[in-house]
């Protein structure tokens, strides 16, 4: 059974849109009230002692009268009039939001939670996927969890997002399972216009909440950083270090060619700067190395960021004029 809880007709601000409303209004939009009269929470709690024990301890049990937006307070503010149910004791005679009802199950919640974090709920990805408030929140739990969550936030999210949970077990991951952040540290689970994270802004801004050192705006940019951090990073977990989707140099080589030095053959043997360089004190004194046939490839095709350290952007030009200072290695 579904019902729409009656509430004051406050149309004055909507009159300007009345024409649109007339066009879009549906006669099936609201079901008639079939639950009898309001009887007050005391009547409900006479039978529902289990709920009474915890309801008073929850934030809902401590609302002040002016915080209710409908005609009723207490239990009936969500469940609708309890008169018929109180008389019949039939569960079907009272509105009980369940996850099965999809969006219908959240209407009672949204009557009050129409602003703040939940303002954009009804157009959120979760809402479109028929996730209901009760999928994550437990109104009649013991009231001890923040935001009346049914379990820890991690467990609530991972009960559906099992594949994401697995990714957090990969060698490189954000410290979620260690308890130092939560899913909502990044995700606006109740929706926002960008379906992203930082309210009102693109997803990149969510990353910059904690990684503001990459915000710039820089003189020398790396365009994927401006485009989407997820081009290079899979933020839930990866095999490669630094949450890179693939290990270097493969990731880089999808958009760049390797240095031409990578096709050079290597000399096999020990080497050190020639005497001329030492005599002229070029700054390489004391250095030495051992080269193998594939050493040039080991240098150029292992980890691009050994030299291109400032891949997120920098204001400092690199050394080469022909590179126009854009090599991102300072």
């Amino acid at each position, binding site marked *: 059974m579904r019902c729409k809880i009656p509430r004051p007709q406050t149309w004055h601000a909507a009159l300007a849109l009345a024409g649109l409303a007339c066009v879009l209004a549906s006669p099936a939009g609201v079901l008639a009230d079939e639950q009898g009269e309001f009887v007050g929470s005391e009547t409900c709690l006479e039978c529902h002692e289990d709920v009474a024990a915890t309801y008073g301890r929850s934030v809902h049990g401590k609302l002040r009268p002016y915080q209710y937006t409908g005609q009723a307070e207490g239990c009936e503010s969500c469940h609708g009039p309890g008169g018929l149910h109180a008389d019949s004791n039939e569960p079907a005679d009272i509105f009980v939001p369940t996850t099965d009802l999809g969006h219908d199950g959240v209407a009672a919640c949204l009557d009050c939670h129409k602003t703040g974090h939940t303002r954009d709920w009804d157009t959120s990805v979760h809402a479109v996927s028929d996730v209901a408030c009760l999928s994550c929140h437990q109104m009649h739990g013991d009231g001890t969890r923040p935001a009346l969550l049914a379990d820890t936030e991690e467990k609530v999210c991972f009960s559906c997002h099992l594949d994401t949970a*697995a990714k957090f077990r990969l060698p490189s991951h954000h410290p979620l399972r260690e308890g130092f952040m939560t899913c909502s540290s990044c995700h606006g689970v109740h929706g926002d216009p960008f379906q992203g994270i930082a309210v009102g802004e693109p997803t990149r801004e969510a990353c910059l909440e904690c990684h503001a050192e990459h915000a710039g705006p820089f003189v020398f940019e790396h365009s994927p950083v401006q485009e989407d951090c997820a081009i290079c990073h899979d933020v839930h977990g990866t095999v490669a270090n630094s949450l890179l989707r693939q290990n270097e140099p493969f990731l880089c080589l999808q958009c760049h060619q390797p240095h031409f030095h990578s096709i050079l053959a290597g000399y096999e043997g020990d080497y050190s700067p020639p005497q001329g360089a030492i005599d002229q004190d070029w700054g390489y004194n004391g250095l030495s190395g051992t080269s193998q046939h594939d050493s040039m490839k080991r240098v150029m095709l292992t980890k691009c960021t050994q030299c291109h350290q400032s891949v997120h952007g920098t204001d400092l030009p690199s050394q080469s004029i022909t590179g126009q200072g854009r090599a991102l290695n300072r």
Partner: protein
Amino acid sequence: MFFVNANLTATDKLDFFVEGVIAMSQGSFTPFNLPEPEGIPADVHISPDHAGASKGAYDFSGIGDYSDLDYNQLEGTLGANYKLDKRAKLYASVNLLDLQDDQPYVYGDLTGSIITYAAGMTVGF
């Protein structure tokens, strides 16, 4: 990746729990060879001492040796709780983090392990 969680209530006062994850993860580059260029383009200037010789080495088959990743990771916790009464219990646990690096990368061999022992008392009120 394999997970296991188990809880065993041995007696009314004693219970055990175990949690374990084994994760095997690889990142690999398919080896490849590039063909030798078919003659040096006429417009390419080659230093006189190398005239006519390709300076290239086009065998990239070893690339996996220095850029592939291969980790085997084990995370496990074994613990027990002993109820002293309705409100109080003792707990003890051991946690193991172990990573085997079978394909050392530029950070060297990242093989390492951490073991942590913990014990204490929880009181409910």
